[in-house]
């Protein structure tokens, strides 16, 4: 039999149900991988003892015949999800040492399904970034390298640690959060599958907030089927999150296992053909459409006229919400405190020392656009553009069932690149942000490699709460592309 850490979630479940391995064996095999690849810096906190304890409890449940959807499956959790009794930092100095006394709804759902936590993964500070370079705990290294080039590449961000951990076979699956592309872009950079569900599908309760009208938890895995299994366990209405949708959770795994897309109308948005996209990615995009057509889909050209305005509008909405959400870090109730002679000095000192450069920059953008006299010119204007973006998608989905686009304009870049000018870094999310602004579901599926041998993903977007069709199309693309890549040495 293959090594346990080589197996997918579906294969691990089968192996455990056939008693070929216990949950404890599976946990130990993955803990060993965490040891081996610690240099990637994918984890902020490893929890091997907790993993073994949870695995033993899982084995005990299985012995009694209680088998959850993810029984005994080891997972890594983005360090933005509060985990009871386990440090949760959001990769920020201001939350270093914070130990939540409650469990986020999404992780509670995963544990209820029998999953086992092996650790908390690294991310961009407060999920603000596209490279994982803004983490207070240092950047994460992408397991992939360019052929004949030893430079370290970024895993993307913000959920970079979660994506790298899955790509390095340290875990078969992990959780991320996606505000403007923070699941889909790292999935593309690391050659794995990542999905942002519809806004409202997964509860945000207990997830450290960045931009509340955009934030949405979602899964990473190495196959579309595994991604669907994770999403199924994570999803569901939660009375503790007022924006959580009161809808039943469909059988996502069944949708992923049935990639029949005969007659499916796949929209190709013409505004996504933009300068600055690598020609290899444009070629892969065309090839992806050919593959879906060969599987029975129908190509439809559609127009999303306000695409180019999504990014600048996002950089008003997200920072505005971030500046409000991050007002809570004042050194009073939790996290870092820098003493001062009075309250104001304590607030300013704590926040100045606790937040990193990118977070401070975004808080300042947000504070400015919300300040007296500027609200209409910026925040209101951005929300109006957001309405137009949502309308574009609605109209496009009258002509098609899903959209196919590139996930990111480039493959993974080298650590330290694009750091000089914030706008250059922001442009990395040009293909993921429009759907975030409209709250729509999207998946990134690895579909090929570039001339340097780096993985490239394609993105499939769907209608609100139609993750099933997105998963079906994702599975069809996965099958046709047959991406079997694995980073050398992992």
């Amino acid at each position, binding site marked *: 039999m293959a090594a346990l850490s080589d197996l997918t979630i579906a294969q691990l479940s089968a192996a455990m149900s056939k008693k070929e391995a216990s949950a404890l064996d599976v946990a130990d095999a993955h803990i060993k991988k965490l040891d081996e690849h610690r240099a990637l810096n994918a984890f902020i906190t490893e929890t091997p003892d907790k993993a073994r304890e949870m695995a033993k409890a899982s084995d005990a449940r299985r012995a009694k015949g209680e088998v959850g959807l993810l029984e005994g499956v080891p997972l890594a959790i983005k360090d933005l999800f509060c985990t009871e009794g386990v440090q949760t930092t959001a990769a920020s100095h201001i939350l270093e040492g914070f130990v939540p006394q409650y469990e986020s709804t999404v992780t509670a759902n995963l544990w209820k399904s029998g999953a086992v936590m092996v650790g908390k993964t690294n991310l961009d500070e407060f999920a603000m970034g596209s490279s994982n370079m803004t983490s207070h705990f240092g950047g994460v290294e992408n397991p992939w390298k360019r052929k004949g080039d030893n430079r370290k590449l970024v895993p993307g961000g913000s959920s970079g640690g979660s994506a790298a951990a899955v790509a390095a076979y340290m875990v078969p699956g992990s959780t991320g959060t996606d505000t403007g592309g923070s699941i889909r872009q790292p999935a593309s950079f690391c050659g794995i599958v990542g999905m942002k569900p519809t806004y409202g599908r997964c509860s945000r309760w207990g997830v450290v907030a960045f931009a509340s009208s955009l934030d949405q938890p979602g899964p990473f895995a190495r196959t579309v089927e595994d991604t669907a299994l994770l999403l199924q366990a994570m999803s569901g209405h939660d009375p503790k999150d007022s924006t959580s949708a009161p809808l039943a959770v469909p059988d996502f795994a069944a949708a992923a296992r049935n990639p029949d897309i005969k007659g499916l109308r796949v929209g190709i948005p013409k505004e996504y053909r933009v300068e600055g996209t690598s020609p290899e990615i444009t070629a892969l995009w065309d090839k992806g459409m050919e593959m879906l057509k060969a599987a029975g889909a129908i190509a439809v050209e559609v127009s999303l006229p306000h695409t180019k305005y999504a990014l600048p509008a996002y950089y008003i909405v997200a920072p505005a919400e971030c500046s409000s959400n991050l007002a809570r870090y004042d050194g009073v109730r939790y996290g870092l405190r820098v003493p001062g002679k009075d309250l104001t000095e304590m607030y*300013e000192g704590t926040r100045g020392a606790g937040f990193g450069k990118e977070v401070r920059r975004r808080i300042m*953008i947000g*504070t400015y656009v919300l300040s007296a006299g500027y609200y209409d010119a910026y925040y209101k204007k951005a929300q109006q553009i957001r309405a137009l973006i949502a309308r574009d998608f609605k109209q496009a989905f009258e002509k098609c069932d899903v959209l196919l686009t590139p996930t990111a304009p480039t493959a993974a870049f080298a650590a330290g690149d694009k750091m000089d000018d914030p706008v250059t870094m922001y442009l990395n999310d040009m293909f993921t942000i429009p759907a975030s602004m409209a709250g729509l579901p999207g998946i990134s599926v690895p579909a090929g490699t570039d001339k340097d041998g780096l993985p490239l993903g394609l993105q499939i977007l769907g209608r609100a709460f139609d993750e099933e069709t997105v998963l079906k199309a994702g599975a069809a693309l996965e099958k046709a592309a047959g991406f079997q890549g694995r980073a050398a040495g992992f």
Partner: protein
Amino acid sequence: MSLDKDMVARIARLARLKVPEEELGTLAGELSGIFAWIEQLNEVDTNNVEPLSSVSDVTLPMRGDKVTDGGVAAKVLFNAPGGAVYIDPTDKNAGGFFTVPKVVE
């Protein structure tokens, strides 16, 4: 839109962020760059467009205005950075206080 050092200092004060004097110039440059890029939104005619504040088409449920939890003061105060003060140290859930620098002279 170009921001000068004074404006950046004002925003930092509003955001309760201590920004060292020597960083104000760099920040002014970066923020001006970002706002210049955002200016392109003015190309879009948004007259009579209703601002979108929630993407959810689903009617969100209401709940009764009732207390649904409580009695967990020890958990609330667990991470207090200045150390918490409890009313009854033998029963931390009886209640307590966060501590801050003196506010009233």
